């Protein structure tokens, strides 16, 4: 989907480019229910990424059972933006990315 999305909006905003390599990317997308088994991998991914990096959470779905549910993402790693919807549509994600860019620009 990231690839489709990339082709879709490539011409509009030159600041956004999708990439699956960890050392050259700035934004980490996290989606879906967080699981205890998955936690170490998520933290490892975040550890490898170059800093400063930004985290976007897609949807806020929470698992239902205690034994496999992990805690909220914000407690594990710092989250910059939450885009609601399960799953959010491509346009909503694009708007979210624009908001993130505006946020970064303000700080700079």
């Amino acid at each position: 989907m990231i690839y489709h999305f990339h082709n879709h909006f490539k011409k509009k905003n030159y600041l956004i480019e999708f990439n699956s390599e960890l050392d050259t990317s700035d934004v980490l997308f996290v989606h879906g229910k967080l699981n205890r088994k998955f936690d170490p991998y998520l933290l490892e991914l975040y550890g490898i990424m170059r800093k400063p990096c930004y985290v976007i959470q897609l949807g806020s779905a929470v698992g239902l059972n205690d034994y496999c549910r992990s805690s909220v993402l914000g407690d594990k790693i710092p989250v910059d933006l939450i885009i609601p919807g399960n799953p959010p549509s491509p346009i909503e994600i694009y708007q979210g990315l624009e908001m993130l860019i505006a946020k970064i620009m303000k700080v700079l």
Partner: protein
Amino acid sequence: MEFSQFINTHFEKEVDGYIFLKPQVEDLNAFIADLNYVYGFNYLLELFAVDLLNQGKENRFEIYLHIRNLAKNTDIILKFMSDGELLIDDLDIWENIDWAKREMYDLHGIGKIKSRILTTRNFNGHPFLKDFIFVEDEVQSIIGIDDVRNKTVIYSEHIKEDWYEIKPFEFSDDHFFKALIDNYDDHISKIHFEVGYTHQGLEKIFETMNPVQTCTLIDQISPQSLNQASMLFCKAVEHLIGVTVSDRVVIIRMIMAEFGRINSHLYSLTNLFNLLNVDSFMAETIQIKDRLHILLKRVSGSRFLKNYNVIGGVRFDIPLGWSSDCIDFITKASKIINNLIKKLAGNLFFKELIEGKSLDSKLSIYNGVTGPLLRSSGINYDIRKVKPYYFYSELDFEAIVGVNGQSYDLLMIKLHEINQSMRIILQLLDNIPQGKIHSQPIDRLFDYVNEVFQTQKDSLRSDVIDSIESSNGEMGLYLVVGQDSFFERVKIKTPSFVNLQASQNIFKGHDIDSFNIYSSLINYQISEVDR
């Protein structure tokens, strides 16, 4: 000995075409081996346990084993009691019994194979037991936000293993599993999958939940094939509590299920074209998919038909003028699909690029694979044809079967199945009758089902088994009615679970490139595996 004589002493009941047996023999392994070698029951569907703690029976667990004779299309369900040990531990006729055993140990603590599959390795207890109490794991709770920032956490255990990204990630569901591959000269010698990273324990929640609530959650199991899982669940529960639905509801459900098949196949095709960098084909499939989502959004307000099926009907009626838009969509989409078939079937370069090794039909049966993958190896088995449910027996369509069992066959099957689904939808759109959308008003539905389960519990059957042809293969549902809660056990047999497991044997000898192509065509939905 004839088959009827052979099972005569063990016979329990025959319901809906399923034969239930309670084997009273000392050597159960020999009994099942006889069923396989002499009577041709060579296809294993499901193996699962039910915890009967509160029913005060002699043994605590009841184990169900569902096997099938594909040629004669007869189903047998063996039921035997257990007290923590598995009587068929040494049975290794079927390749796909391994993961079933591991799942049973993981969730119920039965059997000799002590390796977990869905939960973490150091998990305490077995979550599906009725007296299970969760104790927080110490190691998990230590890792926190400050440790990540200060990099005090060391991940040495995970970094050792090799990672392969199998396919592009989708937003629609959580494709995450680990493949550990041993290779020589870019050819796979051994492959091992690790799953469970998105495990939610949905089946445990369904046990205590009102079936009306379950309908809203069950579609999370296979998000790509839209409302097929909830259709299966509604069909089974309506059959159990004796609710009749109108023909209009049945036809609307069938239309949506076929749209689900188109949607799922389009996803796998886009992934394939993405892998091969064929941008022009990819743009066409994305175009159809986006149009389809707009069409479905008009019906339920959601692109993925969330929460559409309810018990006794569907939530919303189709809007005015929707069916003519459907026909408009189908005429445009079928033009594109036919064009794709024409381009791909004649293109020798493309065929050489993706064809790969062939899949043996015997291998596919003993691995229990289902759906398009089974049909690609030359076995004509489609539940819509073999055991028609709803109106499928009256419709005019074809089950598409492959010849060589290569990934090229699989691609052609998917393309032609999209065409067949459109053909089905056109026939259904012509015949939508007038009728009620739900049998009960939706606000009263929750109380109504509650009442039925409380007052008529004694007259209900003890178990219901049902299956449909979902987009990736046969999806089965096993409901065991409980005494205190609604169900003692809800077990969903999903196609991706067996297909992913079978891939461990199928992919031996493939090179890694063809593995990528093949796996994007098989289209694993990991939420089906983990549940």
